């Protein structure tokens, strides 16, 4: 997949719908938890992460955001890097032992906050 070509394509109508915009906002707002949950599942490169997010959510996240996030999480000791076999250029990111605990904690906190929010909406009589 050519990420830049996808970004430059004319936006189909479905991507302009409020539902899509809402989904896009959620993914972009929670990009750290999204990436961490993906990396706790399997190690990936920055480019693979962008492709995976696009495949899962139809949302294209900027390389400027994803690589910045990976660099800061690595500096914080949450992620570690290894290189692809035989190629010292492609960096594959995975969670460190300490990082896995942080990821589990953050995902649990995120689910708690999400449930609290959804329940508060339900209280006002809306079906969720």
């Amino acid at each position: 997949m050519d990420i830049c070509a996808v970004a430059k394509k004319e936006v189909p109508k479905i991507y302009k719908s409020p539902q899509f915009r809402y989904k896009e906002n959620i993914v972009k707002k929670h990009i750290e938890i999204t990436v961490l949950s993906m990396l706790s599942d399997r190690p990936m490169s920055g480019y693979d992460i962008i492709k995976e997010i696009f495949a899962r959510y139809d949302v294209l996240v900027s390389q400027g955001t994803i690589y910045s996030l990976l660099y800061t999480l690595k500096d914080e000791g949450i992620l570690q890097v290894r290189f692809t076999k035989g190629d010292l250029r492609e960096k594959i990111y995975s969670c460190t032992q300490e990082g896995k605990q942080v990821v589990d904690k953050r995902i649990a906190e995120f689910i708690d906050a999400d449930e609290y929010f959804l329940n508060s909406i339900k209280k006002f009589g809306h079906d969720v």
Partner: protein
Amino acid sequence: MFKNSINGLNELFKGDCDIPAGSVILVSGIEGGLKSGMVFNMMSNYLADNNEHGLYASLEETKESHLRNMESLGIKKLDRLHIFDYKDMRFESNNEELDIDKITEDMIDFYREKYENLTVFALDSLNAFYSISTWENLRKNMYHFFTMLRDKDLTSFLIMETCSPEKQVFVGSTNYAEQPEYFLADGIIELGVIEAKENVKRYIQIRKMRTANHSMEKHQITVGKDGISILGSVY
């Protein structure tokens, strides 16, 4: 205060004048003029004295190689000085055209959101930035890029390599009219080399600094175990 970030830099400014916060400064000069070292040293020392964050975006070198070079110049890296290395995305995206100005803006936005007091930014280098960009109208796009940096209230240092006089004979003369960054920048700091009969001296000169009263003289630069220092006038 940036003028206190390098030993002797204050001598180039008059009175209380300094590099104005939020301005876009072009740091230009020939290869080996210590452009990267000067900017990194200024940022590192400035951040050490202020509880702020900085972002150094490198298109020329990997983070590891850049840090090795800085260490060899006696320049320390602070935890609050973040380095963004474009190399990974350039390699992984293979032959795709990169929307480099959008990527750069998203990168800055990410760090600003993560660290509220991100105040200083550096791009190393504009030449590499141009070589990747798909801009058709350089002047117009540069204007938007400079405006974006000012709108984000960052003091920005844009490093640009220029040809040495002897190379210009082969490459073509420097035509400032084709280089919009010289007009758009709030300040221009030039770093270069002067070859005298018996020795070679590196120098720094403030060519332009809007709203600041400054010396136009070329001052000598030296490198010691604690980084870069600026001495008196070359002549």
